């Protein structure tokens, strides 16, 4: 008999909202808006028993074999070991997204023993001052390299994340080399996607389409040179950048509403379509998972595409990029997200027939 529970490739669990860094590009939805006014997003977290019950319910009601723990900074959560033990017992593989600051050697060994399969760690530049500036945290660069060294030494796996901004794009090649030298399993080349605190730094950080093209060329050559996996998961609109010109890179588009969706559970049990949107589908403590992601509830998010994209042959694939960024920056899921909005005058006309 077919298992009726929804199948999830991954569930993102924001275990804590607190963070010990203040990255300029941070997209966490609970941060103040561009004018630094507080947002209405619920704050707080469940206690340990409540959190374990919440996670158990999520795993019971879905077919999910991978959970990504993020925050805030998940290492700030005192009961992280218990959360990991639960996931290990349920045979769920785990990724931790961390800034690396608290990943000292004993902690790394403990987390690996508890089954953490992958760490996603930022490497924003090969230059200390650039990484620290983007993290708004002195010492961030040395801390994350130390974390990478510990993970490598203890046979764990990590992937470096490079958030592409105007400030660090010139450093991309040397940063890839450094990530490779430290034993990173790959690089996530994520263009800056404004949201959260990042909205206040939009003009300072958002690269142009031309800058992204140059960066992708650099990354493509480096991927070939080092036989190194590089993926670009934040959507890059094909009308702005011809991604087929970079055969050694992989590109992704918004997966909301599919079984590849990044459904995001916050520390209070609120479920969202992805981690970039503040849209709350409902609370998992109050409703079944399948009801929360029912198509009628997801439709406003899934179907939203900017009018600009209507004539495009790739409308349904690209969906205009990141609709969550449009939502948090311009107040509407159907607005043109910042990367498209700021570069659309250079959009390629070849996609006009549908």
């Amino acid at each position, binding site marked *: 008999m077919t298992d009726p529970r929804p199948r999830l*490739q*991954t569930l*993102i669990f924001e275990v804590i909202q607190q963070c010990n860094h203040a990255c300029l590009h941070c997209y966490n939805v609970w941060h103040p808006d561009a004018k630094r006014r507080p947002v209405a997003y619920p704050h707080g977290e469940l206690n340990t028993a409540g959190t374990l019950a919440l996670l158990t319910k999520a795993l019971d009601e879905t077919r999910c*074999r*991978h959970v*990504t723990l993020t925050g805030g900074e998940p290492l700030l959560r005192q009961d992280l070991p218990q959360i990991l033990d639960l996931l290990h017992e349920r045979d769920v*593989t785990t*990724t931790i997204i961390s800034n690396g600051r608290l990943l000292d050697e004993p902690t790394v*060994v403990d987390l*690996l*023993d508890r*089954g953490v*399969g*992958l760490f996603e760690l930022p490497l924003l530049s*090969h230059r*200390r001052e650039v990484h620290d500036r983007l993290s708004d945290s002195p010492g961030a660069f*040395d801390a994350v*390299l*130390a974390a*990478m*060294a*510990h993970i*490598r*030494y*203890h*046979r764990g*796996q990590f*992937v470096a994340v490079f958030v592409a901004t105007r400030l660090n794009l010139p450093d991309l090649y*040397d940063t890839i*080399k*450094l990530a*490779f*030298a*430290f*034993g990173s*399993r*790959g690089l*996530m080349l*994520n263009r800056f996607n404004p949201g959260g605190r990042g909205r206040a730094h939009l003009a300072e950080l958002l690269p142009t389409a031309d800058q992204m093209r140059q960066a992708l060329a650099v990354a493509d050559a480096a991927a070939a040179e*080092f*036989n190194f*996996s590089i*993926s670009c*998961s*934040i959507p890059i609109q094909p009308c702005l950048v011809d991604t087929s010109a970079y055969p050694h890179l*992989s590109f*992704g588009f918004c*997966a909301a509403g599919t*079984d*590849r969706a*990044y459904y995001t559970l916050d520390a209070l049990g609120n479920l969202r379509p992805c981690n970039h949107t503040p849209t709350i589908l409902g609370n998992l403590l109050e409703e079944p998972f399948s009801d929360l992601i029912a198509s009628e509830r997801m439709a406003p998010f899934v179907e939203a595409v900017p009018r600009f994209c209507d004539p495009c042959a790739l409308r349904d694939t690209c969906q205009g990029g990141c609709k969550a960024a449009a939502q948090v920056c311009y107040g509407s899921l159907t607005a043109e997200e910042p990367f498209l909005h700021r570069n659309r005058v250079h959009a390629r006309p070849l996609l006009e027939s549908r």
Partner: protein
Amino acid sequence: MTLTRRDFIRSVSIAIASLVMAGCISSGGQDDSPQGRLRSCWLRLDWLARQARGDYERGEQARDELVAEHRAALDDLVAAGEVDAAVADQVQVAFDEAAFHAWRSNAPMTCYMALPVEYGGRDDLLQQAELLRKAASGLDPAVVEEVQAAIARDIALFEAAAGPEAGAKLIEQFETGEIKASPEAVEAARILVDLLLRRTE
């Protein structure tokens, strides 16, 4: 750090999957017995890899199909009294892991899913060591030393694995408890080696 009980069967399965996908295990012809169907599932991991390339859903479907076929063949073996149920569960765990590995290594990457486990070869390690040497001047020497030690260890592992003592070393690690595994997992590994590697000899 030593391997955990769970890691043992995962390591065995990924090693076998890698051999299959590298074309190192011959098909041996049509065999509709439960053993033959079991073997066929493993030998189709390269097909799964091809299905997964560039198409997430197609790969997922193929993985589901293979995992179900594998379980069905195992159930027949258990029903016939040829394999203990607990051992069969371990064989299935091994196949689940192998299929996941084959799929994940080929399906398009996404931001929040574990990356393919791509173990770098000796040349990769030498290249890493060289790049690290060039980058080291501005970095914390203790951190650089730790990475250098890891690289040197991994190079030594590669060299040892290629040497005549490799098998004996693994057995020694198992006997001294460095590699932990339940009796069911060891039996499952034996079955898989027998099923897939013996016929290749």
